[in-house]
């Protein structure tokens, strides 16, 4: 019973919005993408394609906004605290995470009993989140490479030749979507398996009390419920 | 004693070398070598049966339709599918268009230059040419314009595809009038148009030719509209008129000048036909051109064809794999050694029927149909025999001239049937039958697609496991006809047919080339 406190400083309001936009866009992109791959009901192709292109631009703009905001918005960089720093710190290696990779792996594999100490985002978590950025860009690149108005541009055509043609590019695009689906599944699972407080915070911006930590990861107050 | 080699043998599909031994002006031994190995059967492994239809057509760009049909038929046999009646008619029509196309192309574009000398045509009298054409009952063209065009071509000095041709070769019939040569040249040009008209029919029903698109296990993707049925019918009628009024009279006009060719070039006298053009029963023996086997030992009698007695010998060709296997267990592990007529000398395997080499092609089909009592075939063949002064003696057809004549007569038979089939399809569609495809979900089985390409018996053998191809073997007509010697040293059909051929000039063995080409390899 060691639930950390979930304060709004962890996810300032703008990130609640960008997270919502990401979620909606990804669901829309995956659905419309599946439909474009194999139209499983009739009379929807035009809408599906429209959705796919619209949300592709939305998610790219959202990604851009999120990255820029990281340099200007302050957010908590540790668990269970209201202290804030520039958000970009969350993207960089942090002292609290040092030497903790093995601990996290052991914890997830039930080889270690105690919850490892970590920053707001643990080692694996941080890596996974950061990887979504190049992954989004790769989805965009492969998507543009199979999208008629752009596919002939040298920047995309060169990549298409390199992977061995349109069909291979299409399959890579398809698999990137699957990586997103797997990411989302694991992300949703790990975020909520020890309690739904993280979801309440990121979706509804509702706080929940719990353990508070100092800069060394030591518990300084509060209690798990 | 002299060796004479034609390599490459031009005006055929593919790469063929013909080597003959000539003694006192007669061929006493022969070796035929196929020059190309691609490994089609290995490429198909682990792919879907429906993919085989597309890929196997690329075995032969002149008879892709038959390969496509044999392939889908093999899968249908393996999975126990019977195609709808409409699909049967559509396949017959596409196949018929290819037969007409292929036979016209063979006679005029590929083979005619062995019998017609364009240079001799230059001395033709135009008025006499018209008279001769009318007397022979063959089609009249603007012979004057053709002669002028030919003269300009020769005067220009750049002979393009005629460069280094054996003009004036003594094997061209001395007594054949220049006017008949000119008629041949004029119809050579017309034939180019006609073969394209036949190919257009395939394009309408199959997307394009060569390599059509619409057959697949279970039926066809082609669904006719009134417009398309009309486009097909009008073209078949046009072709039928041309075959009846030009191709057949041409054949009968030229044949008497080469009557000597009734006396050699027959080969072993064994003939195999798997049958082609299904009727409603889908039985091979009931096909419009029925299945059957003729073995020389039994004379001119026909027996049922049985695919279980097939073997393929490979000791004399460039393969490593086991010899004498049935195609359903066949392997094709290629390994080149060297060209040596006393050992291995060809990429072509040696298929055998109950141990015997078999000739495949229009002559096989026409003889089998004749012996099985197919009326239009009997009528045409009897008429032709009479014209050649051999009434009541069908055995003379086992010869070079017989092989050529059989092909041209078959064009007429198939062309007549094609009109019947278009009307059958029109009737079926008008009667409300809109079924062209039979869905299926079986994915295991072994089967054979036994069919006839224009150039002869064609077998596709498939083993399907888990929806994928575990084994695929093809025995093409040219594998039958251009077969190398078998493990017992017995010559292939073309090799045997070459033996006994008179050769005037060892350096330019035109007569040997005629024999080889007569198989349309």
């Amino acid at each position, binding site marked *: *019973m060691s639930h950390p406190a979930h304060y709004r400083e962890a996810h300032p309001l703008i990130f609640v919005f960008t997270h919502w936009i990401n979620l909606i866009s990804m669901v829309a992109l995956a659905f419309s993408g599946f439909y474009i791959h*194999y139209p499983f009901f009739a*009379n929807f192709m035009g809408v599906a*394609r429209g959705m796919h292109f619209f949300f592709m631009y939305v998610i790219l703009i959202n990604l851009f906004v999120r990255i820029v905001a990281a340099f200007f918005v302050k957010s908590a960089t540790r668990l269970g605290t209201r202290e804030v720093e520039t958000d970009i710190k969350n993207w960089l290696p942090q002292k609290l995470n040092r030497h903790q990779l*093995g*601990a996290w792996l052991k914890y997830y594999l039930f080889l*270690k009993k*105690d*919850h*490892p100490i970590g920053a707001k985002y643990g080692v694996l978590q941080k890596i996974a989140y950061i990887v979504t950025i190049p992954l989004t860009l790769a989805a965009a690149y492969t998507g543009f490479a199979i999208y*008629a108005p752009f596919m002939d541009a040298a920047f995309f055509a060169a990549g298409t*030749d390199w992977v061995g043609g*349109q*069909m*291979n590019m299409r*399959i890579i695009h398809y698999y990137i979507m699957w990586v997103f689906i797997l990411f989302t*599944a694991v992300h949703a*699972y790990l975020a909520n*398996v*020890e*309690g739904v407080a993280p979801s309440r915070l990121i979706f509804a911006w509702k706080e929940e009390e719990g353990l508070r930590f100092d800069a060394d990861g030591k518990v300084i107050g509060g209690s798990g*419920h | 004693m002299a060796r004479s080699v*034609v*390599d*490459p043998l*031009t*005006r055929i*599909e593919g*790469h063929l070398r013909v080597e003959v031994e000539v003694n006192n002006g007669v061929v006493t031994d022969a070796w035929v*070598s196929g020059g*190309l*190995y*691609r*490994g089609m059967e290995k*490429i198909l492994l682990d*792919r879907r049966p429906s*993919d085989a239809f*597309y890929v196997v057509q*690329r075995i*032969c760009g002149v008879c892709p339709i038959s390969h496509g049909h044999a392939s889908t038929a093999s899968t249908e046999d393996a999975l126990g599918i019977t195609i709808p009646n409409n699909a049967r008619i559509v396949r017959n029509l596409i196949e018929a268009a290819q037969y007409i196309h292929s036979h016209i192309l063979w006679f005029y574009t590929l083979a005619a230059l062995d019998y017609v000398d364009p240079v001799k045509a230059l001395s033709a009298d135009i008025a006499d040419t018209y008279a001769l054409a009318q007397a022979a009952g063959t089609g009249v063209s603007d012979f004057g314009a053709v002669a002028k*065009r030919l003269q*300009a071509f020769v005067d220009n000095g750049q002979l393009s*595809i005629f*460069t*280094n041709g054996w003009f004036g070769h003594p094997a061209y019939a001395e007594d054949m009038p220049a006017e008949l040569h000119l008629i041949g040249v004029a119809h050579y*040009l017309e034939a180019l148009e006609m073969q*394209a008209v036949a*190919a257009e029919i395939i*394009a309408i029903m199959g*997307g*394009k030719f*060569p*390599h059509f*698109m619409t057959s*697949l296990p279970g*039926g*066809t*993707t*082609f669904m006719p509209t009134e417009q398309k049925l009309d486009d097909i019918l009008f073209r078949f009628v046009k072709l039928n008129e041309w075959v009846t009024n030009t191709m057949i009279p041409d054949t009968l006009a030229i044949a008497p000048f080469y009557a000597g060719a009734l006396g050699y070039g027959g080969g072993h006298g064994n003939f195999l036909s798997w049958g082609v053009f299904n009727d409603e029963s889908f039985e091979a023996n009931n096909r419009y051109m029925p299945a059957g086997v003729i073995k020389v030992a039994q004379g001119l009698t026909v027996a049922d064809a049985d695919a279980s007695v097939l073997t393929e010998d490979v000791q004399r060709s*460039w393969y490593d794999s086991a010899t004498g296997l049935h195609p359903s267990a066949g392997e094709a592990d290629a390994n080149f050694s060297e060209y040596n007529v006393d050992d291995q000398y060809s990429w072509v395997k040696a298929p055998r029927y109950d141990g015997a080499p078999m000739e495949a092609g229009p002559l096989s089909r026409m003889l089998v149909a004749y012996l099985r009592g197919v009326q239009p075939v009997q009528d045409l063949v009897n008429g032709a025999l009479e014209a050649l002064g051999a009434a009541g003696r069908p055995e003379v057809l086992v010869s070079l001239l017989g092989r050529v004549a059989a092909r041209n007569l078959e064009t007429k038979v198939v062309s007549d049937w094609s009109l019947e089939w278009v009307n059958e399809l029109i009737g079926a569609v008008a009667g409300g039958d809109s079924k062209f495809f039979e869905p299926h979900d079986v994915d295991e089985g072994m089967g054979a697609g036994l069919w006839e390409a224009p150039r002869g018996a064609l077998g596709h053998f498939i083993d399907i496991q888990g929806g994928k191809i575990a084994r695929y073997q093809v025995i093409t007509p040219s594998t039958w006809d251009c077969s190398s010697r078998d493990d017992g040293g017995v010559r292939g059909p073309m090799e045997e047919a070459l033996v006994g051929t008179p050769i005037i000039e060892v350096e330019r063995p035109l007569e040997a080339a005629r024999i080889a080409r007569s198989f349309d390899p």
Partner: protein
Amino acid sequence: MAHEDHGAIYDLLAARGVSRRDFLKYCGSIAALLGLSESFVPQIAAAVNHGAKLKPAVWLNGGACTGCTESIAQVDTPDVATIVLDLLSIDFMETLSMAMGEDALAAAEAVFEEPGYILIYEGSVMQGFDGNALRIGGKTGLEELDHAAPNAAAIVAVGSCAVDGGFVMANPNPADATGVKPYLESKGITTPVVNLPTCPVNPEWLVAIVVDVLLLGSLESGAILDKLDDWGRPKYIFGQTIHDNCPRRGHFENGNFVNEFGTEEEALGYCLYKVGCKGPQTYTNCPIVRWNRRTSWCVESGAPCIGCGNLNWVDVGAPFLNRHRDLPLPSVGNTQPGVVAGVVAGAAALGLGLHAVGMKVTGRMDGGAPYEEMKAHDKKRMQKGGGK
């Protein structure tokens, strides 16, 4: 460019039964094919008109099915097409040459001696068994190509086989087939190659190239090379996908699809995308030029495009009736990408499920385990360092 003997070509054509009017009409159709406006017709006529000497050419068959030769016999206007083939003096062509054996090869040899001819190559370049997978005249096909290529003004590779090996190079490529351009590049032979894929080649494209290269002099001027894309394909033929120009595109956008062959949807001519049409990724102008003298083309006959104009078209296209190609997985064999994705996703779901059970059993579900007091690593280091 000034052309002095304007009359010569007309005389030649007249001798071959073609009127001046027919000829200009023909030039018009060529202009259309090349994407030029009607105002170019006089220029084309002038270019054609520069002399009566036929350009020598040789047509070699590699590992071919002869389908491309067959295809060339299926051109729109045979009289004029004959002229085009007559304007080329094709002194050697296995399927059509009157000559045979050594005499036929000698005709080719005579052409090879004088640089500047056009070499047309049909079929795959067969490298298997040291080139013995293809034997012609007692030599390998490779020797023939090595000999023919260097002196040619240009090589036109007709059909997918000549472009990259075509179906013959599909996995496992038993005869080690490749295309003319990659083969010559490996040999350091720099003769320009114009690639005309699809299986077989569409004859209209060859006619366009013949006019472009020979009659507009675009080879000498280098203009032809500017019209080629990175694979050596003329952009004006292979610049747009079949999907871009498909007459059934409207059905695609509306979501009207054929789900199964032989159905009412098919009779209505709906889009064949779901049954595997490769039109969206295949760059050819088939829907516009069509096939067999513009009679029809694959999709019009109810058949999905199989992408025969793509590089390595069998491997990237099969199974042809599926949306995706197969992946050749080692020890598993050809597998659909969706199956792989399904298996991985299923395994992941199973893994998460098992993990959740573990979380429940270890009592971490509600709030997780207690936090460690100090990082395990630091603790260990402190113990080693004597409590520092």
